[in-house]
C-alpha cells in the first residue's frame, strides 16, 4: 500500500509535509552532510532582511529544563548576500525553499521581497512577525492585528508567490490573527515562533542572554503550540504550518490532527539531525497503519 505524502501551500508543492523551522537549519549547507536535503518537503532558511544584519551579542542561547532559549537576533547576510552565497547551493536540490523574511520597519518587508522575488529558487516567503529577539520590528508587528494585517497586505502586493505569516504565541486570541492573515491574502500561516522568556544567573545577577530576553523553544512549548494551531485551524480555511517542540513523529502527527497541513522541525535539529527523516517516515507509517491514503485524511481530525 502506498500513501500520498504530497501537500500544497498555496501554489507551492511539497513532496511531504515536513520542513524545518527557520533559524534552526541555517541556509541549507550547514546540515547537508547529515540530512538529505532532497528528502525535505521544503527548506526554510533563517530570517533575511534587506541588508546585512549583525544580530545580538553573545551569549545567544541558553539551555533550560527540557528546552532552550535563544536571542540570536536575526544576524544574516541580507537579501543580496543570500542570493550570492546560498541560492547557487540551494538551486542544486529538488526541494522548494521558503525564505523567512523580516524587517526593522514596515517598508523592509516590501523591500526584501522585491529583492528576492526574481529568484526562481525562492518558492515562498514566511513572514516573521513574531521574533521576540529584535527591538526594531519582530514581535511588535505580530501582537497588534492592524499592523499585522498591513504588513501582510504590503507583502501580498509585491509577489505572486505563496506568503506565510508566522504568528506570535503570546496573544490571547490567535484566531483573530489567523483570520486577519487569511483576509489579508496570506496563502498559509505558520504557528508558532518562540515564546518570550528569560533566565537569570543567580550568582552574577546577569540575564543568561546578552539580549536579556529570548525565545523558548523545544518540547516545553509543544502543548502551547498545539492549542494555538487548534484555535487557528477553527478560524481559517488556509493551511497551517505547525511547529514548536516537534522531536518525534508522534509530535508531528499530533500537530496535523490539531489542524496543521505541514509541520516544521526546529530545535530538534540541534539535538538529533536525524529527526526530520524519522518524522517523515513516521508520518508515512502512521497513515499506512491507520489506512489513510493521503495527508489530508488526518489534518484537523481531532474530535473536539
Amino acid at each position, binding site marked *: 500500500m502506498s500513501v500520498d505524502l504530497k501537500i500544497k501551500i498555496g501554489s507551492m508543492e511539497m513532496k511531504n509535509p515536513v520542513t524545518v523551522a527557520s533559524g534552526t537549519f541555517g541556509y541549507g549547507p550547514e*546540515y547537508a552532510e547529515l540530512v538529505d536535503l532532497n528528502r525535505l518537503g521544503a527548506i526554510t532558511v533563517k530570517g533575511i532582511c534587506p541588508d546585512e544584519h549583525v544580530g545580538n551579542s*553573545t551569549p545567544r542561547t541558553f539551555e533550560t529544563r*527540557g528546552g532552550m532559549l535563544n536571542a540570536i537576533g536575526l*544576524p544574516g547576510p541580507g537579501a543580496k548576500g543570500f542570493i550570492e552565497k546560498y541560492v547557487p547551493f540551494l538551486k542544486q536540490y529538488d526541494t522548494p525553499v521558503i525564505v523567512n523574511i523580516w524587517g526593522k520597519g514596515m517598508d523592509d518587508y516590501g523591500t526584501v521581497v522585491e529583492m528576492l522575488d526574481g529568484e526562481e529558487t525562492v518558492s515562498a516567503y514566511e513572514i516573521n512577525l513574531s521574533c521576540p529577539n529584535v527591538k526594531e520590528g519582530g514581535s511588535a508587528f505580530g501582537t497588534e492585528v492592524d499592523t499585522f494585517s498591513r504588513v501582510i497586505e504590503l507583502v501580498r502586493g509585491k509577489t505572486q508567490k505563496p506568503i506565510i505569516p508566522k504568528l506570535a504565541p503570546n496573544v490571547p486570541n490567535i484566531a483573530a490573527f489567523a483570520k486577519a492573515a487569511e483576509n489579508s491574502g496570506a496563502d498559509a500561516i505558520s504557528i508558532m515562533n518562540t515564546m518570550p522568556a528569560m533566565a537569570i544567573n543567580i550568582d552574577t545577577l546577569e540575564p543568561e542572554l546578552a539580549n536579556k530576553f529570548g525565545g523558548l523553544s*523545544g518540547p516545553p512549548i509543544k502543548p502551547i503550540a498545539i492549542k494555538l494551531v487548534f484555535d487557528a485551524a477553527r478560524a481559517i480555511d488556509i493551511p497551517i504550518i505547525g511547529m514548536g517542540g516537534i522531536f518525534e513523529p508522534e509530535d508531528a502527527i499530533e500537530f496535523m490532527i490539531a489542524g496543521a497541513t505541514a509541520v516544521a522541525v526546529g530545535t530538534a535539529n*540541534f539535538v538529533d539531525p536525524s529527526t526530520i527523516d524519522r518524522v517523515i517516515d513516521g508520518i508515512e507509517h502512521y497513515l499506512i497503519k491507520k489506512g489513510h491514503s493521503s495527508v489530508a485524511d488526518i489534518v484537523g481530525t481531532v474530535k473536539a
Partner: protein
Amino acid sequence: MKQEKATVVEHHNFQGEYRILRLAAPVVGPLVKPGQFLELQVPRLDERILRRPFSIYQADAEGVAVLYKAVGRGTEAMAAIQPGDEVDIIGSLGNGYPEADANKTPVLVAGGYGNAALYILAQRMEKTGIAFFGGRSEIDILLVKEFEALGWEVRPTTDDGTLGTKGLVTAAFDPWMKEQEIETLELFVCGPNPMLKAMGDRAIANKFTAWLSLDRNMACGVGACLTCVIKRKTGEGWEWARCCKDGPIFESREILWNE
C-alpha cells in the same frame, strides 16, 4: 561530518578529575583532523537536551576518544556511561589545525583538556618541538609522558609550583621566547580563554603565528544556529565567525577580543 551511534569501548578515570571515554566509531574515526571536535549526546541527561562539544583526543579507523573533566550537569551525567552503552555523536566538526609550517618551529601551549586536544596534533605532526603546559597543580598537567614519548620537550607550569615553573604558562614561555628567533615560531594553543588571549597578544606583538582553539558555548555544532560566534576582523571592521564551523581554530590576528 557524520552522525553515528558509537559504542562505548572504555570509560575510565585518567588523572585527577579527568576521564577518558573511548568509542567504537568506524564512521567518524577516520574523518578526524587534529583540532576537530565531536558533539556528543549525553545519555540520561535528565531534562537537558543539547549535545556537548568535546575535542577529539584520539582517533583512528576504529573510533575516537575524548578526555574530559566533569564541570557541570552534562559532564557529570557522563559518569554513568558504561562500556557497551551507545552514545550518539556527530563528528568530526570544525576546521581543525592547519598543517604545521615546515619552515617553522612548532610550539604547543595548553591548559586543562587542551593537552588532550593537542595530543592528536602532536601524534600526527612530522616535527617535534617544545610544549608549555599550564595547570593549577601537578594533578592538572596531563599527558606529560605521552608527549615526551613522541619526542616533545615538555615545560610544565603550575599555579602552586608543585610541578615545573611556578606561575602561569607565560611564566615559562616568556623567558624562553626571548631566546628564540621569534618569527620562526608557530604556536598551537588550546586552553582557557585568558591563556588564548595571552598567547594571542604575544603572537601579535612579536609577529609569530599562533593558532588558537576557541571554546564557546554551542548548540548545534554545525554552523546553523549562530550561537557560538566570535568577532573576526575583516578589512573594514569585523564579522561574526562561528567557532563550530569557521573555527574552533583561528589565527591570533583574526580575533577581535573586545566582546
